[in-house]
């Protein structure tokens, strides 16, 4: 098939938004679009993929796919890929995708281009744009193997609904149990409904100026006001001080994010931090130090004490929302 196979990730019983984004991209690239969805209960979710351009949807469903176990999922997906024989494989560079994609590429004995923010086609070659140095530079990269395996950063591309009904096929996978050596003992996922920082549309982030862990409650309150697509983040200084877990860290040794709105509270804007959030669509900086480098990148700067500004901002937003 001279088309594209996408991997649709399932989490908490739902197909992730990133899957719809890559399905839309696959449709735009042209050729047949096949999707592979793996998960317990995946069959019921499969029709959603047709709405975003999948012509054919391969479903791998069963209790052994309840948790993401790399070897199990890689085996299942590779078997589907060998049936489909796509020239392009698209995945989402989510937390799971970052584990899954290189393993799939290695199993298919090709390379991969990871965490891309734009994908175009030149003839039958895909050229992908990806950030390096946490966004301090961008590379245009071409894959020379077949298939071309490319993971796409969540939120970088839009998802577009199209008319059409994809055919759904349930696939029976032959798992080679001898290769599945890791066993999952427990999975602990926080009950939060907050999106991951890499997938959030709004991030309210705090730095050294927050002064202590207890003060992050007001950032959480502000994020909550912005709605379900918002979450909180932190600078390295706040994480290293032990005020926030490292999964909150935005920057070169943390997460690279690209939300619609990034609100930096008490963050001076070290080069490593700015690399990680510099592609945010709108940046707001609240800092009492008028000389803080963050103000050179911020679309809106508030030079004042965040402990006065943030509570007042919360009240003002409440007023606007009625």
């Amino acid at each position: 098939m001279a088309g594209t196979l996408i991997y649709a990730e399932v989490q908490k019983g739902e197909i992730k938004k990133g899957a719809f984004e890559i399905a839309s991209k696959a449709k735009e690239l042209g050729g047949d679009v096949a999707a592979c969805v793996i998960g317990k209960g995946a069959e019921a979710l499969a029709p959603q993929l047709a709405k975003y351009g999948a012509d054919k949807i391969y479903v791998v469903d069963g209790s052994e796919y309840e948790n993401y176990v790399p070897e199990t999922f890689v085996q299942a997906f590779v078997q589907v890929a060998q049936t489909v024989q796509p020239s392009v494989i698209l995945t989402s560079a989510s937390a799971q995708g970052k584990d899954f994609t290189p393993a799939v590429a290695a199993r298919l004995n090709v390379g991969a281009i990871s965490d891309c923010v734009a994908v175009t086609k030149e003839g039958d070659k895909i050229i992908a744009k990806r950030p390096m140095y946490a966004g301090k530079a961008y590379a245009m990269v071409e894959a020379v193997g077949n298939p071309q395996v490319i993971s796409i950063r969540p939120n970088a591309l839009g998802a577009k609904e199209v008319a059409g009904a994809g055919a759904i096929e349930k696939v029976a996978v032959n798992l080679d149990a001898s290769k599945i050596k890791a066993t999952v003992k427990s999975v602990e996922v926080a009950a939060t409904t907050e999106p991951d920082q890499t997938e959030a549309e709004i991030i309210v982030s705090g730095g050294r100026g927050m002064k202590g862990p207890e003060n992050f409650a007001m950032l959480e309150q502000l994020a909550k006001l912005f709605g379900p697509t918002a979450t909180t983040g932190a600078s390295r200084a706040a994480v290293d001080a032990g005020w926030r877990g490292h999964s909150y860290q935005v920057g070169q040794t943390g997460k690279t994010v690209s939300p619609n709105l990034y609100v930096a509270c008490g963050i001076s804007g070290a080069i490593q931090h700015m690399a990680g959030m510099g592609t945010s669509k709108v940046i707001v900086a609240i800092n009492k130090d008028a000389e803080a480098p963050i103000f050179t990148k911020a679309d809106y700067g508030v030079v004042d004490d965040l402990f006065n500004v943030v509570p007042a901002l919360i009240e003002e937003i409440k007023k606007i929302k009625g």
Partner: protein
Amino acid sequence: MNTVVCLKQVPDTETLIKVAGTSIATDGIKWVISSFDEFAVEEAIKQKEKMGGGKVTIVSLGPDRAIESVRTALAMGADDAVHVNDGAYYEKADPYATAQALAAGIKGLTYDAVFLGKQAIDDDAGQVPAMVGELLGLPVVTQVIKFEAAADKKSATVTREIEGGQMVIDVPLPAVFSAQKGLNEPRYASLPGIMKAKKKPVDVKNAGALGVTAGPMTVVKEMSLPPARQAGKIIAGDDAKAKAAALAKALHEEVKII
């Protein structure tokens, strides 16, 4: 416990990146161990200490300059190293080619675990751990934040970071593990450590001598800098409350986000 640590030398995170052709300008760069690889080095040394001995072998692909970072790891407490010193191969190496060279450097060594950083902080690809595991035919656990080997060194119980939480996994050894921040606090090299490191054995080989024939599977066609961001406006107001009101208004009317 015997371990192998794959290490990459990268520009310090303070580096202001400048483009040169399809790569970056390397003048004036301070080269350091990639920060996630530091966690890998620390974990290997920690396990050696905890498990009552063994050996930590560093394997690194890089040009001549990479030896400095290899010596830093030896000074931290690693015992010996394989330096795949091949500037020409390294220059074109993508994650696939890098994994080929590292796996070739690892083959023939005796080990219970291979540790790598979850990604190098220069190309940020995050592919090498999975690919090395595949090439060695070993299970891979990425994003590890806690590692505990069984007393008989036949298995390990590890905690890996997943989206919004954690997963605890039992895996037989040998296996490949990629280190995430939170795994440990890397130590600094001590002065005696630095002195000792100078005499520790480093096996230097080029890719050809290791029998690596596979080339890169991806090619960088062009490199560019992101568009420069301009400073926007500073919100004026008599006090914090007035500024907050003006900001809320801007977010509502201009950004249309509220």
